[in-house]
């Protein structure tokens, strides 16, 4: 699905958060007629702007409630289907490290993927990567074992 909002999502946590917010908006459509207020309540300014742009590009911005529901469902489904790049490391990463990693990931992967960082002290050092059905173990514990 072609969505500007989805393209801004970089991590699994962001995706989960957005999914929760979109579900809130979908539920809110049955309770309120003020769509603008509903978006203000659930999304930040940037997200709201991008969602409105998405709705506009799909010609459902001023359409009826069922059409809005369908488009939000499509965005939710697309978010669910985004591939996940799982990185297992032995330490808690700081913000700078995470941002650098996201930047590196975006430039090196051909498709959009969500970064999912897992902390596992048992691997001692190095990293274990899971992506597109494959697992690559570059951990220190594996080196020690072998």
């Amino acid at each position, binding site marked *: 699905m072609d969505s500007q909002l989805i393209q801004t999502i970089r991590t699994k946590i962001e995706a989960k958060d957005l999914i929760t917010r979109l579900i809130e908006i979908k539920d809110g459509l049955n309770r309120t007629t003020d769509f603008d207020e509903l978006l203000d309540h659930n999304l930040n300014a940037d997200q709201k702007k991008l969602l409105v742009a998405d709705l506009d590009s799909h010609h459902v911005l001023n359409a009826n409630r069922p059409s809005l529901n369908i488009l939000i469902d499509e965005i939710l489904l697309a978010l669910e289907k985004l591939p*996940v790049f799982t990185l297992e490391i032995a330490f808690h990463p700081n913000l700078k490290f995470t941002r650098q990693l996201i930047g590196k990931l975006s430039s090196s992967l051909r498709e959009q993927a969500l970064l999912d960082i897992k902390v596992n002290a048992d691997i001692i050092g190095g990293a274990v990567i899971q992506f597109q*059905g*494959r*697992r*690559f173990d570059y951990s220190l514990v594996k080196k020690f074992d072998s």
Partner: protein
Amino acid sequence: MKNFEHYLSTIGEYGVVEEIHHPIVIINGLPEVSLNELVMFDNGNLGQVVSFSQNKVQALLLSPQPVNIKSQAVRTNKIISISVGRHLLGQVIDPQGNIIGQAAGNAKTSPGQTEELSVERAIPVISQRTQITRQVITGFPVIDLLLPISHGQRAVLIGDQQTGKTSFLLSAAEAIAASGTLVIYAAIGKHWNDLSDITSSLQNALAQQGAIIVASSSHDAPGLINLTPFTAMTLAEFFRDQGQDVFLILDDLSTHAKVYREISLLGRRFPGRESYPGDMFHVHARLLERAGCFIHPEKGQATITCLAVADTIRTLFTPIIVSNLISITDGHLLFDASIANHGRFPAIDFTLSITRVGKKTQAKAVRQLTNKISVLLSSYLKTERYSHLGAELSPEVRDLLLVGEQYIQFISQEAANHIPMPVQITFAGIIWQRWVNEQSTTLIPQWRDNLAAHYLNNPHVRSLLDDIVSAPDLDTLLKKLDSSREELRTLCRTNP
């Protein structure tokens, strides 16, 4: 089997569950998975890969516990296999080869040498097979004389429910196990009550390690029910390779076909006739072709005799599964509800049943006699329909009706009553020689059983009957019968 983490770290491939249509699970990932490979889910459940496309893998769950969306699955690099060995003799096992209950009175043997065998194995080619030569003795004259089954034959038992198919099979299995052939009974998707009945019926054979039951209940996962006949066949192949004759019962393939249909439809495969998938015939043919008579390097030959069961509705054998099985096998035995309702056991309609290879294993004299009896019974059944009209009957027709009725009395018996083969042949000859008059017709079952009891308990009678049935042709057999007429008459009339 190792655990999930082991396979993830050693094979390094995983997939994520995207859709569940229980028992079919759609997995995204597993880039190098192969067909029929086992996959393990993160909760320890196992699945079998049934199809795949570029990104998606369809797996069939092998346990009733569900898996969750977004849960992970890993490759195991294994296809479904079972651990087989002589320790399984006398046991009740599940389709994965695990012992699920120890038969009463059966002492557990040590595992000894075990082998890990895949349940999907190549079908033996023609050069590995040999001609059938030996007859399976079931103890039922209707089978042993009129519709003989040979070691290595494949046959299908068809009939409505409650016509005595399972009772017949269990009784025949007891007799066959007693003769030294290993009986493997595959109870496919049965109720627990029925499984309990099957186990108790085969109690003696299990106790003497002459039988194995492979059981799946109707509450088991469809994947396991689907696996049951293949596991039973794999077990049969293991014992065949050891030089043992195996009698395999698949009860029943209609249930198996229904489960396979359910799995296929949930897997979005295109439905064909009666909504069965297009490969339904192939599944059963691939299974039954693994039975037969094979060359064995030490014993000369080792056989897998396979009797499959299929249910009919109102004795129609045009439905796809029944007609498929008839065309795959070397004969069929039709159990007729109207015969069962007349109280006859086994309720086999011998006019509509066929054995394509069994007659080749009968001795010449027996074959000549039974051919004559078959023709006579066929004429009897046609004539009997009109005899009640009350027209005056010629002496020939009266004789036909009398002898026909006597043969019907002769082939009707109790389920647990096994008649030794020489007694069957001798008594069939006695009726053929018209030694039984009209008044004594109802005494035939009793006389037959008297003769059988004498045969089993008296060595002299045993040698007498063995000598009679060793005749090279029918004329000699009848002459030998005539020469022992008075003695046989006395034996039949006296209860030992």
